[in-house]
């Protein structure tokens, strides 16, 4: 049996997003909201693990009342308990305040029944910071493995997990003891086609709502805008740096690589 926590976020569907050319800020009005795609991967993995090992899935999110829609979606993946952290005092939180709020909530939730596995998306597509997962793990004092692309094995008896993690040039295979916090990459798990009963159940699911007043006890100064030292100076589209190509000689024969290089140099008129 696995006790799993998944933390998700509702984000604007950035495939539809537009930037106000005058102010440089996102136009959020009229943009449909979706569950952060990497969080959907986390939910998918939780779903798969629950089927395989049995257990329980708790899903939390911090956001406005509309975020209930994402929690209902979580029920489709088999979530047993869904919790919305919703309060004006939570609003305007940066990654520091968010990690604090989530970590305190998780501590509260696992008082009697500690989580074995905590799943986060690798990052939220509306901020791309990738800081919240590690921030929470740090506060919970548990190991964190970011950018996980494969879960190789879970050993429930010895409480160990083996995962593959994406690094810039290759893959790291890591073993960690449970509980562990993973942040999920797209490749980690395919979205399941969930059964009819879950879909019907989801439309009727009502999340528990936690506020700044309780049931979790927070230090007020660490919440929301107050607890957020980050200031946004400017929003801009980064220029794409020219990228080189990297060939792995274990996969591509040397001759072919040389050929390609000569081809490119000729094309640029350098040879």
């Amino acid at each position, binding site marked *: 049996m696995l006790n799993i926590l998944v933390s998700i976020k509702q984000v604007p569907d950035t495939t539809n997003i537009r930037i106000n050319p005058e102010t440089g800020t996102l136009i959020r009005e*009229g943009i449909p909201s979706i569950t952060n795609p990497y969080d959907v991967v986390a939910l998918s993995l939780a779903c798969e693990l629950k089927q395989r090992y049995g257990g329980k899935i708790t899903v939390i999110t911090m956001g406005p009342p509309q975020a209930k829609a994402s929690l209902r979606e979580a029920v489709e993946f088999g979530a047993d308990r869904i919790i919305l952290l919703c309060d004006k005092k939570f609003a305007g939180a940066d990654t520091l305040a968010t990690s604090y709020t989530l970590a305190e909530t998780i501590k509260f939730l696992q008082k009697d029944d500690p989580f074995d596995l905590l799943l986060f998306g690798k990052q939220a597509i509306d901020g791309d910071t990738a800081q919240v997962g590690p921030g929470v793990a740090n506060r919970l004092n548990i190991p964190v493995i970011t950018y996980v692309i494969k879960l190789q094995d879970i050993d429930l008896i010895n409480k160990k997990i083996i995962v593959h993690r994406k690094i810039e040039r290759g893959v790291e295979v890591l073993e960690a003891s449970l509980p562990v916090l993973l942040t999920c990459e797209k490749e980690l798990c395919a979205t399941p*086609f*969930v*059964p*009819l*009963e879950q*879909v*019907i159940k989801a*439309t*009727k699911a009502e999340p528990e709502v936690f506020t700044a007043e309780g049931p979790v006890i927070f230090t007020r100064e660490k919440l929301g805008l107050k607890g957020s030292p980050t200031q946004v100076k400017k929003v801009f589209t980064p220029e794409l740096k020219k990228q080189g190509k990297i060939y792995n000689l274990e996969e591509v024969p040397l001759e072919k690589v040389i050929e390609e290089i000569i081809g490119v140099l000729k094309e640029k008129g350098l040879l």
Partner: protein
Amino acid sequence: MNKYLYDVVIIGGGPAGLSTGIKLAQKGLKTLLIERGRFCGAKNLFGGVVYTSSIKEIVPEFPEVDPSPVERPVTEEGYFFLSKEGVVKILHTKKRADESFTALRAKFDAFLSEYALKKGIDLAPKTKVIDFIRNNGFIEGVIVDRPTSFEDPSPATIKAKVVVIAEGVNRLLTEKAGLVTKTFEPEEVVLAVKEVLQLPKGELEARFGLSNNQGLAVEIFGEITKGLPGTGFLYTNKTTISFGIGIFLKSLMDLNLKPYEILEYAKLHPYFRELFKGSETLEYGAHLIPEWGIKGLPKPYGNGVLVVGDAAGLVNPLFREGTNLAIYSGLMAAEAIFYAFEKGDFTERSLRRYEELFKDSFIYKDLVMLKDLKTFLLSNSHLFQVYPEMIYDICSLYFSAQGRYKRDVIREIFGIIKKKRGYWGILRDFVKIGRFLW
């Protein structure tokens, strides 16, 4: 035993399916509504003007609801006759502002589905019905594309006493149920395309002369469809405009025209170019409107099955009725279902009640009255070509007659009429239209 057992299963979460569901739930029937879209309204499109009285039949507390699906009440309504150069408008300020309102499909259907959920129906979005469970000429339920459970990956089957088909214009399941023998022909459907345009803040009110709780709804004839049989429409929403056209699929195919090209072309018309200046397109969509007429209607009932809304061909294009007819048909279906439950008989014999109710209603009478509409419109396409141009030219002359001998002006006006259509032509058209409507 089957995992999923219901009294009634409804296929499709448009206005027809949802109103059926709301009525059934009110009487405590265990009802499941299946919608293939991400949510009700996600896969759909309409103008749209909705009539308050029809909504009140299913949501009595309307319009006192929060959140409300109302964009703006329709306070001004009428017609635009568009010529190549300009437009002649006939607008009337409505006596009552609460008769009809503009709405956007995604919000409107979502509103109804929330309401239906609260009334107690079960809802399965993101799920598509792929076939029926059949037994000896009886329809006993449906099969969907989703797995039964995490343990059982086979497609879920849902048993029900009655299946209500509310699938909209693409009547694939109606056909599968054997209630209609052929798919439709291009001359039996109108293809509508529509854009939602966002104007700079405050411009909507300024350009249309509206206050915050006033709204405009117009149908547009003439150049908007390049003179083809069909209409354009323009409705004001809270901060956006719904702008679109509907043209018989046959005309589009004959002339090899793409509907969005016609819409783009319409937006370049000097009048609309000015009206929409600085606007941004938020949404774009296309959808068919059934124009089967009374002869092309499916049989609306069978053993264990009923058909409602667009799937049953219930649209009155002349009076922009579709949503309300969908709702009324849902109500009649619900009534027939109650009757069947009372009798404990779900065969044709008791479900025929639906057709009886339908034949007594104004919907059926209207359909009989307009039975030859598509033939009439397609064979009188000059009405859409000649008249808007003529009306505009006449007005242009008439309104710039200052400083001239008026008899000359009038003579010139008659000259236009003679050239464009001829006196006899006009007389014939009047008689034809009169006869058609009588």
